């Protein structure tokens, strides 16, 4: 039997990987993909706990996460298109409208 720790560790590694993607990549779309990685890492966690605790709640959550990921992807990509249309840029460091 594979220990739960293995799943959790895997999830952590993937999560950090996604996080690093968010942090270090300039391309907006890759950043969004990294977010997907993080969501997946979370899903792994949820499902693993669901399995080990004999509960359906984890799976349900994972399901909803997927749904939200879909929504997020749709909206996020729409924003990217808008921004790109305005600024001809998809690099996050070119977009600093949030600055004071």
């Amino acid at each position, binding site marked *: 039997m594979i220990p739960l720790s293995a799943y959790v560790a895997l999830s952590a590694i993937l999560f950090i990987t996604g*996080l690093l993607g968010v942090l270090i*990549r300039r391309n907006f779309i890759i950043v969004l993909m990294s977010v997907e990685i993080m969501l997946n890492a979370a899903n792994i966690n949820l499902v693993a706990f669901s399995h080990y605790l004999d509960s359906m709640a984890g799976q349900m959550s994972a399901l909803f996460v997927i749904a939200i990921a879909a929504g997020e992807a749709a909206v996020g990509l729409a924003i990217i298109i808008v921004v790109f249309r305005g600024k001809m840029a998809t690099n996050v460091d070119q977009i600093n*409208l*949030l*600055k*004071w």
Partner: protein
Amino acid sequence: MSDLIVILIPVFPLLAVLINGLLGHRYSPELAGRIALGSVGLSFLCALTVFSSIVSSGTAREVIAYSWFFGGDLHVNLGFLIDPLTAIMLMVVTGVGFLIHVYSVGYMHGEEGFTRFFVYMNLFMVSMLLLVMGNNFLVLFIGWEGVGLCSYLLIGYYFNKVSAAKAATKAFVVNRIGDAGFLVAIFLVFVNFKTLDYTKVFANVGQLSTEMATAIALCLLVGAIGKSAQLPLYTWLPDAMEGPTPVSALIHAATMVTAGVYMVVRTHVLFDMAPIAMVTVGVIGGATALFAATIGLVQTDIKRVLAYSTVSQLGYMFLACGVGAYVAAIFHLVTHAFFKALLFLSAGSVIHALGGEQDLRKMGGLRRKIPVTFKVFFVGTLAIAGIPPLAGFWSKDEIMAHAFMNHEYGFYALAAIGALLTSFYMFRLTFLIFFGESRVDPDVEKHIHESPSNMTVPLVILAGLSVLGGFIGVPPEHGWLHGFLAGVATPVGAVPHEVSAGTLLGLMGVAIGIAVAGLGLAYYLYIVRPQTADEWAERSPAVYTTLLNKYYVDEIYDMIFVEFFKKVGRAWDWFDQNVIDRVIRGIGHAADSSGAGITWIEKHVIYSGLNVVGYANHLLAWSWRKLQTGLVNHYAAVIVVGLFILVHFVLLWVTGKSVL
């Protein structure tokens, strides 16, 4: 004699004042003159009635016109006291006054302001009558100040002349100094007696201490000195000659200036209680008599010579008071009123004849041109010089005799020297005017003429009085006058001293000798050897100049008082504007500048203190806003790190040990 007549005496002139003063511009000056004259004449008649009734009854009586003012324990009536002293004075004032009025109508004829002149003259009469008739100190004081005012107005009659204006002011102000003293005396009287009525005061005089009596007497004396032009307050009188000549005659010779003497005699009860005051009176009188006479020796203005003569004669009267010879003082007052009025009026006649010339150096040899004037003037001179049997002899001799008999030999000596000088300068005056070569300007000489009859008639009457007036006091010490005034002018506690007739006759002889000596000296100097006087003057220029400049008293007074007070005034004015006002404004300025200071605090402490907080916040934000890169990944990193730290803390809290 009814009360009404007494009251009418001052009322007639007062009515004339009102009529002429208010309506005078409506009718001719002549009518005004007649009204004025008539009023004084009526007044004289009333006075005569009163006088005769007093002579016949010999009792004093009081007449209250109305209650003047009152309050608390003070009650002042406008009332009159008619006693022999008043009666005598009334006769002098109204009589001489009437004559001078008559004279003035002629003298002032055609002058601008004729009506005004008579208004003033009548007002003077009113005041003078109040002065002599009053039954208390305050009525006396009304008259006292009233005559001062009229004197002021009449001296300043030719107000366009600077000298006249100045003389007027001077007269009033110097008088006012005396008045202040008089006021103090009145206050002291009231404080001590709680009344101001003569009768009550004199009745209770015994309760007074000698010190207080001395104080009152000295204060009264100050008043008298001012009014009667004694040392040291005499300087106004010579200057007062700026007024028209009748004024000089009436006010500055016959009546007003003798008010001081009258007052001293009136209040002699107080003086009698104060030996020191008596001595002071005598000393002042004697000194003035001599002092003024010396100045009179060298003056060149006809009226000034007479003025100094007046001062000198007033000194005699004071001297008489000082030795307790009150009757003699009044006697001299009366005779002096006659002959000095005569002298002034005839001097006026001379001046009138010469068209206004008053300088002795431009006269001479007028004897034949204006014979009437000459004659009356000469009579006057004889009278004043003390040639018997004219009026001046008797009165002056009585004063000197009194001084001698009271063993006041110093006073006697003063009086004797004064008499010599009097005789000398009066004859000098006469000789310079009427004898010798004519030094009159040729232009003027053509117009010399004798005065009209309405001027000469009073002169003649006065001359007659000057000749005969002395007999009211003959024989000395026992004349009619002495008897008449015995009740009111006898010194308290005086012991009638009996002296041998020989002594009296001897004294008379000395007096005659003195008078004649003066006459002879003058004759020698101005008729026999007219140049001698100049030689003497050249021989001792210092003395001559000093005398000519009246001992520089005016200049000294100017320096000590007038300039001094002007300087003080300027200094205080400066002080007022620059210190007091500054101090009080300084409070304002202090408030102002503390306002500025507080505004500074508001600006730089409170306001900017708050702004510093705000601005520091601003600067901090400005520097920290760099953190806000706007880059998503930076935010994410911060979130992660923050989350991580948070997790650590939570774990630390839950597990109690550090994760690492």
